[in-house]
């Protein structure tokens, strides 16, 4: 069970370092910083196994095989990607969670649509996301118009491709 234990341990260490960094100084480009932290520990973890195999008690098999390293790579990567993908829901104000919290806070009295509109407006739901797209180099603003940068273009094409495959609408 070493691959599982080592993979989870690496992830926990990376998560704790991320926690410490976030408490000390919140990075401007948080998703990039997360990718950097988790990638660093992946490289470090695999390097330790290859260069200093004696440090890790590898009990599953007598030697360390490429198969086990690949399994570790896959396990750690999907653990990290799962967290990074979940991160925006923690960080940003998800409209669904805003609605649910607002309805929950009204308790048995319930919440009507007018109350909901006052809480969930463009200032809260749209403008911060546009600012994020500018910060993340997905769009740029010129002559009062927002236009796509190559990164934004790739994202738009990727998701549009998927939406076309499932014959879905624009989403949102």
């Amino acid at each position, binding site marked *: 069970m070493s691959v599982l234990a080592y993979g989870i341990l690496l992830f926990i260490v990376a998560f704790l370092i991320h926690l410490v960094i976030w*408490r000390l100084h919140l990075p401007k480009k948080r998703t990039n910083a997360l990718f950097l932290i988790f990638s660093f520990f992946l490289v470090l973890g695999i390097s330790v196994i290859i260069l200093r195999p004696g440090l890790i008690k590898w009990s599953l098999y007598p030697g360390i095989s490429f*198969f086990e390293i690949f*399994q570790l790579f896959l*396990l750690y990567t999907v653990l990290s990607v799962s967290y990074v993908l979940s991160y925006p*829901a923690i960080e940003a104000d*998800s409209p669904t969670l805003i609605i649910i919290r607002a309805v929950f806070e009204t308790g048995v009295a319930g919440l009507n649509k007018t109350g909901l509109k006052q809480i969930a407006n463009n200032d*809260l739901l749209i403008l911060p996301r546009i600012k*994020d797209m500018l910060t993340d180099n997905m769009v740029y603003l010129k002559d009062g118009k927002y236009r796509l940068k190559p990164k934004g273009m790739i994202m738009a094409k990727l998701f549009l491709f998927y939406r076309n495959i*499932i014959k879905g609408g624009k989403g949102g």
Partner: protein
Amino acid sequence: MVEALLPIICLLINVLAQVLNFRMAAKKRLLNSIFFGFFVGLFSLVTIEFQLDLASAFINIISYVLLGYCYFHFVGLSETARRIRMLIELYQSEDGLTLNEILSRYNAEAIVENRLNRLINNGQLIFREEKYFIGKPAVLLIAGAATLLKRLLHG
């Protein structure tokens, strides 16, 4: 070596099953198609792994579940993410959009309306006498977990 690739191969089976299920279903329920694809992929993996090493199979199943979670997020982003919707609007525009043009295509009202419909359809919210109430607690629990994690990260 092929055994190590099994979670990825089964993810591809998952994606294929999900897309086919969603396209062919008379009633388009995205969440149902995601679960369908996930279990088709999991069934394929367990059937193959049954004949292989148990400890290795366990790791592969965990990796597959996490890959399934990543795919669920990808589908979720394509369906609900505000940034993705705005990127698609910009991509489909002739020469970019002003803020007012973006808001005329996609705004808080549309966002709230879409989510209210989804939450009511999934039973997470109840609409009674022109008011909304909490239904099933699943999303409420997710909201609680997100708040806790946010506090943990930001103090």
